[in-house]
């Protein structure tokens, strides 16, 4: 039954936006739990923490990080779009706002990915 | 299965739902059942577009509305009923206003009115060009307020149970399960609408097959004035979708292929706003005489709205614009709409008096299914939704008064068993080599050809012969779908059977009436004959075809005069 949230056949971009919002929301919640869990390492002292950081801030982890950031950016920008509509504004131009949001997501994501890439690679 | 109610109302269109509300308002103790073969808001009444006539403002009067109606009816209307009708109408409009109908408004917030054919005052109240739609939804929603109303949606009427001249109940198929249900009732109101699908080129919904009329007719209730069938001047070519009279009421023109407003030759005073029979005949004559516009779907006449301007069309005729664009790809703002006269309204129906009572005790009929006869030989535009409201209420109230003093009726199990075996063994279980769709097609062709606007003896005789032949062949019909639940094949076959009976009444009635009056025009008898034919036709069922009787027309104030527009 919940698969219907992600059925996109014949659906418009709005439904896809909804599905992605839900998906990214769940992903980010899971990440939140993981994040809180690994922050425990701070309490275990410098070595534990730094070895942890060392394993996560690596090129191998970068791809996950970049995808996670995509999820975050999407959820944020799309969320702002939804808040706008849900507070009762601008339904009439919701189509163009959706396109603009998608554009913003892509642009911000590309910039962020580049910065993260240079950050991790130490360029 | 058996259920019991005080009043059972068949048909959930305007008249049926108005009757429900009237009965429910009368007493909270009554248990009222509403049976319909579709969900209530899928009824044909939603297709009514133009408006509803009522006397509302200074300058108009009840007598004027009544006179317009009587003159429009070619003096076949019962004038006592017409007077009752026009007086009740304004309150109905206000009630709908109080119940939430989004009437179109004037600048100062009053209910707006527009011009309509045959009315000598701008008295048609409207809600854009979706009047019927809004009225139906308003009544449906209002109906939800009454807890003593029980709806039976998607139940198909198969027979009435009448014993000793009194109604006992009726049987209907519950489509979802396919079970036959016996309704025991003290009173039954038929509000099943007209019989428009007799014709192929028609404005009617697919569901309007005259079920109530045919069932009543078979049960021995007479049908009145069935030969009068209204042809609306402007049906969209080729589908027959209604292009409301309001198009002309708002100032649209009809033009032939030379671009001429030909109505000035037929009704110099009223022009396009003459009554429908006059305009339809004029258009058909133009087409017959070669002045129609040629197209792949036959000849048509142009309904020209281009001079009204986009703003007015959007405000007053949005549905028309939408339909023209969607169905024929023509934007009325820029191009004229192709139209042709189209079968539109059944003036006749179950014989009732002005209280909607049929000769059978406890059986009422309202709306298009009944024939109080306020429309006589030709109905005026915007009087049909009005009729549904006034006489729907009258029927509901009279029925409620009647059942408050009536005993419960009991129908024996034999009746149920017999009906069950008739439907499931004889009709559904039968094998044969005819198919109902073919019969329906041939019936439509016959009606479109021989019982159209201009009628003549030879063609009428041919039609009668053909219909008899079709009835013969109908006995040999086989239904493909043998399943029980939601068997639309079975329903369709039933409907064809009903329509064949009604077609026979229409055809023989038209053959018998040797005069031209209102919508019934005989080329061989082109004059109205008040001496011999100022009377209503009553058709009684016999196994070999209808038996006819005639009753006089009630005249109170207005003696017949020549009808000129």
């Amino acid at each position, binding site marked *: 039954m919940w698969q219907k949230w992600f059925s996109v056949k014949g659906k418009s971009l709005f439904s896809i936006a909804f599905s992605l919002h839900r998906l990214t929301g769940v992903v980010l919640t899971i990440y939140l739990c993981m994040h809180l869990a690994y922050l425990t390492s701070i309490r275990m002292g410098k070595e534990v923490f730094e070895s942890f950081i060392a394993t996560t801030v690596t090129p191998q982890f970068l791809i996950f990080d970049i995808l996670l950031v995509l999820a975050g950016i999407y959820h944020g920008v799309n969320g702002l779009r939804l808040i706008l509509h849900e507070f009762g504004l601008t339904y009439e131009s919701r189509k163009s706002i959706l396109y603009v949001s998608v554009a913003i997501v892509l642009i911000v994501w590309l910039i962020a990915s580049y910065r993260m890439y240079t950050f991790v690679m130490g360029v | 299965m058996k259920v019991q109610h005080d009043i059972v109302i068949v048909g959930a269109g305007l008249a049926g739902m108005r009757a429900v509300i009237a009965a429910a*308002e009368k007493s909270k103790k009554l248990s009222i059942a509403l049976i319909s073969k579709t969900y209530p808001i899928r009824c044909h009444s939603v297709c009514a577009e133009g408006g509803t006539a009522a006397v509302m403002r200074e300058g108009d009067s009840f007598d004027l509305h009544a006179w317009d109606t009587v003159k429009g009816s070619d003096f076949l209307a019962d004038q006592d009923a017409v007077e009752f009708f026009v007086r009740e109408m304004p309150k109905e409009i206000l*009630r709908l*206003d109080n119940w939430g109908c989004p009437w179109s408004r004037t600048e100062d917030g009053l209910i707006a009115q527009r011009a309509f054919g045959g009315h000598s005052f701008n008295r048609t109240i409207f809600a854009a060009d979706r009047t019927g739609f809004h009225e139906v939804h308003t009544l449906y929603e209002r109906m939800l307020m009454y807890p003593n109303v029980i709806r039976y949606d998607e139940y198909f009427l198969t027979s009435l149970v009448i014993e000793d001249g009194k109604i006992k109940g009726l049987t209907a198929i519950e489509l*979802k399960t396919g079970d036959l249900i016996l309704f025991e009732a003290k009173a039954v109101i038929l509000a099943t609408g007209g019989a428009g699908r007799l014709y192929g080129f028609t404005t009617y919904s697919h569901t309007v097959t005259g079920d109530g009329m045919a069932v009543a007719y078979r049960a021995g209730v007479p049908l009145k004035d069935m030969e009068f069938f209204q042809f609306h001047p402007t049906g969209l070519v080729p589908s027959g979708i209604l292009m409301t009279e309001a198009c002309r009421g708002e100032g649209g023109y009809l033009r032939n292929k030379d671009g001429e407003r030909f109505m000035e030759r037929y009704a110099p005073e009223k022009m396009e706003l003459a009554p429908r029979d006059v305009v339809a005949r004029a258009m058909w004559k133009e087409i017959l005489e070669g002045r129609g516009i040629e197209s792949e779907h036959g000849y048509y006449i142009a309904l020209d709205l281009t001079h009204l301007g986009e703003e007015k069309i959007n405000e007053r005729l949005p549905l028309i614009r939408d339909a023209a664009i969607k169905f024929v790809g023509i934007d009325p703002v820029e191009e004229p709409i192709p139209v042709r006269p189209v079968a539109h309204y059944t003036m006749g129906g179950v014989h009732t008096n002005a209280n909607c009572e049929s000769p059978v005790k406890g059986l009422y009929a309202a709306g298009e299914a009944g024939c109080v006869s306020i429309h006589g030989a030709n109905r005026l535009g915007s009087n049909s939704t009005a009729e549904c409201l006034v006489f729907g209420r009258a029927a509901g109230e009279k029925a409620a008064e009647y059942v408050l003093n009536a005993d419960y009726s009991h129908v024996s199990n034999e009746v149920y068993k017999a009906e069950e075996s008739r439907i499931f063994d004889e009709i559904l279980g039968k094998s044969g080599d005819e198919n109902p769709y073919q019969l329906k097609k041939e019936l439509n062709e016959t009606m479109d050809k021989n019982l159209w606007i201009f009628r003549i003896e030879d063609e009428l005789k041919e039609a009668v012969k053909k219909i008899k032949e079709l009835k013969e062949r109908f006995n040999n019909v086989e239904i493909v779908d043998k399943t029980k639940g*939601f068997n639309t094949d079975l329903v369709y076959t039933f409907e064809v059977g009903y329509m064949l009976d009604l077609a026979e009444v229409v055809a023989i009635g038209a053959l018998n009436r040797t005069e031209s009056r209102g919508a019934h025009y005989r080329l061989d008898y082109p004059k109205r004959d008040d001496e011999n034919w100022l009377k209503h036709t009553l058709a009684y069922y016999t196994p070999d075809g209808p038996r006819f009787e005639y009753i006089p027309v009630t005249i109170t104030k207005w003696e017949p005069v020549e009808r000129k527009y």
Partner: protein
Amino acid sequence: MDVEFRIRRFDGEKSYWQTFNIPVKRGMTVLEGLYYIKENLDGSLTFRASCRMAICGSCAVKINGKPRLACETQILEIGNSLEVEPLDNFKVIKDLVTDFEGFFKKHEAVKPYLIRKDDNYEEPVELIQSPKELHAYYDFTLCVKCGACYSVCPAAATRDDYLGPAAITAAYRFNADSRDEGEKIRLALVCGDNGVWRCHFAAECSEVCPKQIDPAKAVQKIRFKSAIETIKSIFR
């Protein structure tokens, strides 16, 4: 020109696809196509239809994955092969016919009628409403209850008792009517946990509505209003 109709059928027990080839002329609608099949090829094909002019709402089906009114959809606009399925989120009874009972019950549940204290059946009075006040709600009166919006709603897909876009729009239509006095009653009815809170603005309802009504807008508006009313009620 021949067009292929793939129809998802259901005989009460099993569901299967059946293909029909039918000749199509310019201007022919999907509904006419279905009637052609019923009248000439297979009489047992079951679907609902009535007015064939897009005003009764009977014939909403899924055409190539998108819910539309069959009667107003031109076949040739879709292409030379099309898939017809019953609406999602409704229980299929037979072939293209789905069970609308619950849908209408939900519509009924929001009290979609004018509520007035001075309601007088016998002696009604004319109520004044300016064209501007009329326009404030008029668009929302155009709902034909075809179920297209409900069939695409992701909340309705997973929660059977969600009121759905059509019912909430009906509630909004009456709340926005200047003649109405029942706003609070209706707000209370739509703000339960099966009401407006289930909407997450997938906005698909507005995309598929054959009458371009924008149910999503109505839901947002009535939700905002009920949130404000709630906050007010806390301080009362």
